[in-house]
């Protein structure tokens, strides 16, 4: 128990497609003071270190970590920024605390995607400048390539993918953070604007702005600060080959291996029975199914029918994206792990209101860093410590 780490506070802003009235600093400040209040921190001065998650090219500012201390109360404190999802930040903070050098660490990530006026082009810079970029292929097409192969190998269908959209956008009605709740039919999803076949417009999450801040603490501090600490039982992260030519298209190894790494730490032998609910990357609808299968929740090709049978619904055996996911709430890019972690905390604390699950003792959050990456991270949260 002495090496256990828990989340003791969370703060976030209301997601919206546009946030012209606040700067990213003001947005983060709002999330930060809410998180510190939620953590019952006597003062921000009690925080020993800060981890922020951001990508310079998305922010439009080089060496962005220079711009992160003020709004978090981190002036003249240890602070570093990593280019990863918020869940990568959680894993980093856990390690910081486990060194014994820091007792309380704050993790922050935000999205101001409305400020990025050439987002697809920025994403395009993630491709190889010599071998891929000259082909001038829109980066969303890489998701389409992935989807085509996934459907071919797994025998899941377009209808299954449409049902993911329907489920998540329906779940979003019960989440007051959602920007994209909607009642849809399979035909409406499949007949929506054809973008990058087999993808259609409604199968892709839409960008939203928002900020997330979490306070993590070691076991001793966690128990003092919060009556309902949420324990981090395992963190696993994997990057596969960046090469579009040679990556593991058929097996989604980044999800599989990151899950296995987290399961080992959490001493989970059978995730199907030992995990109660899932918040899984669904940036593109098929990804939810692909990731569930890679994480070992379903055998290859079985997730689609499970979805049709209601197993992924809030009252099903494997509730998945009860929050509405990024299809229902919106995508925050590298801050999307924040949405997943908020849902984990609310469910595990028993504070999820109208969408509270009956059984919520252990949950799994999984983030993928989006096209064209093969980077994934799994974090397992639990009501109880190790």
């Amino acid at each position, binding site marked *: 128990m002495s090496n256990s780490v828990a989340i003791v506070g969370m703060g976030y802003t209301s997601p919206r497609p546009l946030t012209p009235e606040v700067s990213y600093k003001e947005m983060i400040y709002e999330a930060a003071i809410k998180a510190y209040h939620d953590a019952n921190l006597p003062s921000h001065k009690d925080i020993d270190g800060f981890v922020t998650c951001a990508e310079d090219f998305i922010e439009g500012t080089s060496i962005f970590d220079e711009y992160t201390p003020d709004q978090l*109360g981190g002036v003249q404190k240890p602070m570093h920024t990593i280019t990863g999802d918020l869940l990568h930040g959680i894993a980093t903070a856990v390690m910081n605390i486990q060194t014994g050098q820091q007792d309380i660490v704050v993790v922050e990530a935000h999205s101001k995607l*409305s*400020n990025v*006026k050439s987002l697809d082009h920025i994403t395009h810079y993630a491709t190889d400048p010599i071998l891929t970029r000259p082909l001038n292929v829109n980066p969303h097409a890489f998701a389409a390539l992935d989807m085509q192969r996934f459907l071919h190998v797994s025998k899941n269908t377009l209808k299954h993918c449409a049902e993911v959209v329907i489920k998540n956008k329906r779940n979003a009605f019960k989440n007051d953070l959602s920007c994209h709740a909607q009642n849809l039919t399979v035909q409406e999803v499949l007949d929506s604007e054809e973008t990058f076949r087999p993808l259609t417009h409604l199968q892709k999450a839409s960008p939203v702005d928002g900020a997330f801040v979490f306070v993590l603490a070691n076991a001793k501090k966690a128990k003092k600060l919060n009556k309902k600490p949420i324990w981090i039982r395992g963190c696993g992260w994997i990057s596969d080959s960046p090469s579009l030519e040679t990556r593991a298209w058929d097996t989604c190894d980044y999800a599989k291996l990151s899950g296995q790494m987290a399961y080992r730490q959490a001493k989970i032998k059978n995730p199907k029975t030992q995990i109660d609910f899932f918040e899984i990357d669904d940036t593109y609808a098929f990804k939810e199914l692909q990731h569930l299968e890679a994480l070992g929740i379903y055998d290859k090709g079985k997730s689609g029918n499970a979805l049709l049978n209601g197993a992924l619904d809030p009252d099903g055996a494997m509730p998945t994206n009860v929050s509405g996911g990024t299809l229902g709430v919106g995508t925050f890019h590298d801050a999307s792990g924040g949405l997943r972690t908020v849902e984990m905390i609310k469910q595990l604390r028993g504070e999820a209101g109208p969408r509270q699950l009956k059984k919520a003792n252990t949950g799994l959050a999984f983030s993928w860093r989006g096209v064209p990456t093969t980077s994934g991270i799994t974090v397992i949260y639990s009501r109880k410590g190790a």
Partner: protein
Amino acid sequence: MNLKGTPLKGKDFENGHVLTTKSRSNAFYAWDTGQGIGKYLQGLKEGKILGTYCKKCDRTVVPPRVFCELCMGSNIEWRVLKDTGRINTFSICYVNWDASRVEHPHLPAVIEIDGATKGHGIMHVLDEVAPKDIKIGMKVKAVWKRKEERKGDITDIQYWKPL
């Protein structure tokens, strides 16, 4: 100095004797200024330099912000500061972006604004001053653009000159 190797000239690249790939960036952003900096820029458009005062820390800062990064409180008051100040630090820049020499040196400076707490000022440029005469602590005054030319931009102040 005689160095071993194969010398390359510009035309070797132009003529394709050296294999290269070129790409031009397509990165466009529009940063929301928010409440703090938005009001500051509006002030500049009106010919005023605005700062904020934190009661708890007894500190007036510029550029202004809607929260205090030291106490993390938001109990702040807006203050109109003077458009005069003192040079905190400066440089005399003789080199262009392309490394060529400039005829008239560029003169960036940090100017502590009168009315702000000591140590608080803005980054800007000097003019109407001989480089050899610039000194730390020198009193300076803002030279504004004409009212109809101001856009709510940091360049609404053209430069600072000795007072």
